[in-house]
């Protein structure tokens, strides 16, 4: 008998049969995992098996390569905190959908998990959490091997006045060096360089920036579009 016990966040749940479910979760030590949940769509299970909720999870299967079964006990009901707030719900849905689509199965991603757990802990803050959501997507890109280099300008080598990102290399470009490539560069919101104040349009710029690299390097490599929940989040801030 194979199995593990871990803390995990529910990413997606699909009805299976009448009262059961197929769930996709991101666990702290075991990464992205799928399994069958007996009663996951039933009266008692439906509230527990909602995207964003953190559970004390147990996975078991007869053999390691089988789908296996999940059982879980609710530790944090993030979904319930987000239901009344359109902004919170959009962030929760997008974060879960991006993690579900971006992370390979059975690979531990402790940084992505930690970032997602921190977002879910504060999901009640709604739209105010959006800059941290963008930072999480930047960290997710880095964890998957597609990190942005925002330390110095790709042209001058200087760390000052960084205002753009090259859509090809993911490296920062300073305002002065942008010159003839200005219309082709992606705006770099200052909050991604430190603790700068958030100006109107910064979150939208950050979402456009990460959407470009997620779309090209993560989802695009698998011939997948960005999840609809991620597109709806971008629409919300555009």
């Amino acid at each position, binding site marked *: 008998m194979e199995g593990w016990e871990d803390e995990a966040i529910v990413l*997606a*749940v*699909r009805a299976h049969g*009448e009262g059961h479910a197929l769930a996709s979760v991101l666990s702290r030590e075991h990464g992205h995992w799928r399994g069958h949940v007996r009663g996951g769509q039933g009266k*008692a299970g*439906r*509230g*527990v098996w*909602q*995207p*964003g*909720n953190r559970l004390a999870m147990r996975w078991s299967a007869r053999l390691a390569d089988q789908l296996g079964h999940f059982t879980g006990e*609710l530790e*944090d*009901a993030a*979904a*319930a*905190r*987000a*239901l*009344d707030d*359109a902004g919170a*719900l*959009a962030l*929760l*849905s997008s974060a879960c*959908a991006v993690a579900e689509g971006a992370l390979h199965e059975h690979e531990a991603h402790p940084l992505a998990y930690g970032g997602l757990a921190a977002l879910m802990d504060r999901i*009640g803050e709604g739209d105010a959490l959006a800059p941290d959501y963008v930072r999480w997507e930047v960290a997710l890109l880095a964890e998957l091997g597609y990190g942005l280099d925002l330390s110095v300008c790709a042209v001058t080598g200087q760390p000052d006045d960084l205002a753009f990102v090259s859509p090809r290399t993911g490296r920062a470009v300073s305002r002065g060096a942008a010159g003839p490539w200005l219309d082709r560069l992606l705006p770099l919101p200052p909050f991604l360089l430190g603790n700068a104040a958030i100006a109107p349009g910064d979150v939208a710029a950050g979402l456009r920036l990460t959407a470009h690299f997620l779309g090209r390097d993560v989802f695009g490599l698998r011939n997948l579009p960005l*999840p*609809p*929940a991620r597109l*709806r989040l971008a629409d919300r801030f555009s």
Partner: protein
Amino acid sequence: MMGPELERLVMLLAKLPGFGPRSARRAALSLLQKREVLMRPLADALLAAAEAIRPCSVCGNLDTTDPCGLCADARRDRATICVVETVGDLWALERAHAHKGLYHVLGGTLSALAGQRPEDLSVEPLLRRAASGEVREVILATSATVDGQTTAHYLAGRLRDTGVAVTRLAHGVPVGGELGYLDDGTLTAALASRRPA
């Protein structure tokens, strides 16, 4: 050993909600034992329902008339539309006698996993009904799940331009519920939706 007719009957019954192969065999046996009093009337009723029942072109309810009995009922409050996910939800509200207005059946919720997009739901007909001038309030009665509430927020945004009041069902402690037995999610939602006493 079963003949092909009986095997087909069991196979079809087993597709019904709440039925598996064993319960389907029991039901088939019961039908065969009550051939005249149950099996033939049931077959007639199934045929009649399959011929006559259609979705209402106004609200999406299932009925033998179009518009359905609810839409055609002059006693109902025509200024209020309650939006539900499925016909089953409509029946639940009707059973409770909780709503005296009209309904609109969406046909599901927005769902990334199930691939349900706004154009797959009955959203445009709802917007047309809300903008008709007769409607004052739209009640969003979608389920208290991430997909259900995402759909509710989406509809609230789309309905904003029509100028009608948009309300949602409350989430919280059920009638007869004791706090000690409630799940964490319901308690959290109940606290978030508290109101002045």
